[in-house]
């Protein structure tokens, strides 16, 4: 293998980019942003139709648009961007060349072909089967084939990532263990391999069914295995965006992990337990045993929830420790008040952490509790939950990372820094509200994936309470506000890429500069109070726990008033 490549050291961040890796990160990130743009345009159709007083699109168009919105956002935007993150966390953070760049480009090509093929199938009509495409409802063969090609491409991308880790180790570009952020990326990649394999196991026979090569795919088995793909792919996101949280804490504050052992241990819990969550979608299904449901839905006794609660403490905790070391040491919260709220990388990540925990995390555990699932399953509470995890958690973190990457990777200044300062607030906070009102409507029973809550044309219509209509109207308003925030992000990203002021690059060399070996730091923290290095974060964590416990038992109380079921 030839090693003829160059390495650029970014003058602002000191990060070192190998030229092939840099192009690959850029290509994958831009492809992701294009799908975010398409998915965002489709979102307009979704929210304006579910807003009862507007009820914009025809039923057939609505289901088509909703199918494409789900796929473009949950699969294509996020996985393209994640592949970019994997290459960044391996080649850039470990300062080595990327393994097999030609294979990586082939993977990229497969992903582009697959995602375009799948989108075309949906726009042609006849494939409005929703992202989940539950058999026996069938889509066009190219719908499944597109997904399969995309998945194969992403899988190859994961192996290029693993190969790059080997390159770094063999060429000794770093000493000791990989950085924590890279460790998080490894977690994401391992989960991705499991996820994509599950997708292949179920989508290949379904594609064969659509070609009439086989006669039957069992609908229940489809649901169980499809969700090992569908849910686990969201767990890739969790591992990826938590890595970004650590990354941003490091670059904005110079924060070091409170304890490598705890943070890495929490990632390890993800690797072992996160994939069990397929069960979340089967809790109200026939066929699976209670034992299977209870054990799987709780990620084996909630060990993955434990991991998330750990990250939720250690990341703000690391920020607090770093701020206190800088002298922001007054009271419990001076460190937070004096945080760089005008830096969109920080504000985006902080809004993401809080929203992911309070809205996405708590609601997720409710839905994932075997019995409580019955009062939530397939209501619009479900999209309320996953917009809090995937949009507030993942998408907003990716946006925050982008503001860091524009000067560093794109080598451009952000075209409108004033607008960038506000974008995470507009997008994140309107998304908070969007999720809350969706969960409110879902608590009243309103269905997800439903064109008309007035049931026009039904022989036995049901009338939803007025509060449900109010909530769905607010969903529309909040949705439009969030889409505006998303549009600003696209404008800033694409605009900076095209018209931003170029940043002069000087340091280019033909050899990588290895990461220097750092001197061990004094281990013991001397800030904080009561022997707590991060007392403010601990108080915030206790507020979180109180909200969690209270809401958990409110739901049990609600369940206990229902019909007897056994």
């Amino acid at each position: 293998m030839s090693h003829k490549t160059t390495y650029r050291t970014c003058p602002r961040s000191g990060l070192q980019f190998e030229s092939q890796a840099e192009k690959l990160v850029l290509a994958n990130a831009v492809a992701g942003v294009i799908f975010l743009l398409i998915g965002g345009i489709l979102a307009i159709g979704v929210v304006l139709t579910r807003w009862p007083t507007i009820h914009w699109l025809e039923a057939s168009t609505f289901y088509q648009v909703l199918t494409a919105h789900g796929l473009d956002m949950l699969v294509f935007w996020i996985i393209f961007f994640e592949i970019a993150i994997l290459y960044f966390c391996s080649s850039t953070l470990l300062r080595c060349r990327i393994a097999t760049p030609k294979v990586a480009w082939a993977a990229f090509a497969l992903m582009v072909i697959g995602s375009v093929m799948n989108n075309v199938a949906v726009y042609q009509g006849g494939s409005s089967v929703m992202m989940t495409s539950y058999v026996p409802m069938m889509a066009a063969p190219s719908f499944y084939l597109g997904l399969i090609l995309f998945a194969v491409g992403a899988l190859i991308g994961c192996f290029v990532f693993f190969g790059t880790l080997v390159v770094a180790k063999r060429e000794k570009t770093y000493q000791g263990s990989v950085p924590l952020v890279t460790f998080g990326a490894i977690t994401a990649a391992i989960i991705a391999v499991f996820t994509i394999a599950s997708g292949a196991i179920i989508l290949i026979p379904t594609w064969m069914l659509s070609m009439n090569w086989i006669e039957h795919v069992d609908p229940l088995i489809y649901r169980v295995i499809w969700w090992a793909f569908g849910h686990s792919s969201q767990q890739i996101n969790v591992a990826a965006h938590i890595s970004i949280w650590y990354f941003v804490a490091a670059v904005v504050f110079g924060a070091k992990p409170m304890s490598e052992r705890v943070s890495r241990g929490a990632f390890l819990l993800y690797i072992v337990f996160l994939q069990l969550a397929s069960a979340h979608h089967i809790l109200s299904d026939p066929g699976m045993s209670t034992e299977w449901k209870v054990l799987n839905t709780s990620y084996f006794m909630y060990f993955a929830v434990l991991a998330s609660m750990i990250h939720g403490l250690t990341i703000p905790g690391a920020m607090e420790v770093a701020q206190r070391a800088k002298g922001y040491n007054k009271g419990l919260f001076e460190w937070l008040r004096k945080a760089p709220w005008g830096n969109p990388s920080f504000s985006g990540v902080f809004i993401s952490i809080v929203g992911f925990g309070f809205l996405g995390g708590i609601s997720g555990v409710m839905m994932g509790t075997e019995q409580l699932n019955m009062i939530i399953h397939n209501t619009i509470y479900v999209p309320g939950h996953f917009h809090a995890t995937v949009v507030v958690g993942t998408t907003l973190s990716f946006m925050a990372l982008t503001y860091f990457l524009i000067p560093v990777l794109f080598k451009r200044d952000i075209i409108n820094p004033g607008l960038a300062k506000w974008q995470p607030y507009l997008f994140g906070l309107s998304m908070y509200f969007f999720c809350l009102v969706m969960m409110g409507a879902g608590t009243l029973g309103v269905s997800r994936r439903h064109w008309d809550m007035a049931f026009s044309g039904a022989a036995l219509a049901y009338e939803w309470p007025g509060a449900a209509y109010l909530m769905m109207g607010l969903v529309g308003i909040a949705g439009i506000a969030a889409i505006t925030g998303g549009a600003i992000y696209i404008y800033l990203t694409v605009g900076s890429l095209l018209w931003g002021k170029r940043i002069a690059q000087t340091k280019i060399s033909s050899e990588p500069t290895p990461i220097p070996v750092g001197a061990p730091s004094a281990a013991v923290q001397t800030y904080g109070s009561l022997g707590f290095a991060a007392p403010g974060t601990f108080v915030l964590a206790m507020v979180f726990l109180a909200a969690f416990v209270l809401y958990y038992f409110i739901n049990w109380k609600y369940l206990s008033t229902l019909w007897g079921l056994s």
Partner: protein
Amino acid sequence: MSAILPPTERLWWKHPLDRVEGTWIAIAFVWCMIMFFMMIYWHIYGKQNLSTETYKTTTELFASKTQAMVDKYTVRTETDLETPVVAPPPGSDVYMIARLWNFWPILELQNGQTYRLHLSSMDYNHGFSLQPANINIQIVPGYEHVVTIVPNQSGTYSVVCNEFCGIGHHTMVGRIYIKGETGNVP
């Protein structure tokens, strides 16, 4: 010294835990265990647990069982489609077909009585979403799911389909009447 650099101490796993982390991990662990055992507790002492009694079935078999119940216990018909309203005796097996795009038949049950409700689909996945109680159960074709129910409030309930099943999905609404004492039955 930072999350984007290799740990400076090669033996990072021997690094002592900060007290704030240790305390939080202990609290979070206890909470996780409470949540786990709450599900088991509810299976023993709670009254709302979803049955897992399931049989493989066919559309013909399930339709014929439902038809037999309709033939025996129909008390009247409703709507332009002349949907039968069926009032089987308490304690019996009651059937509800989910299909494009209705639930069939309409059931009329007694408040506070126990019924074995059989659910299956004739075609795609459907959702049994009982409103306004808000009980939601997935209906999967090829599987007959038997759920023991005890209604606790009389009135008119709607069954909204909440699994996407095609263009007429929004017209798919069924009905269950609960007769007898108004108000809650313990």
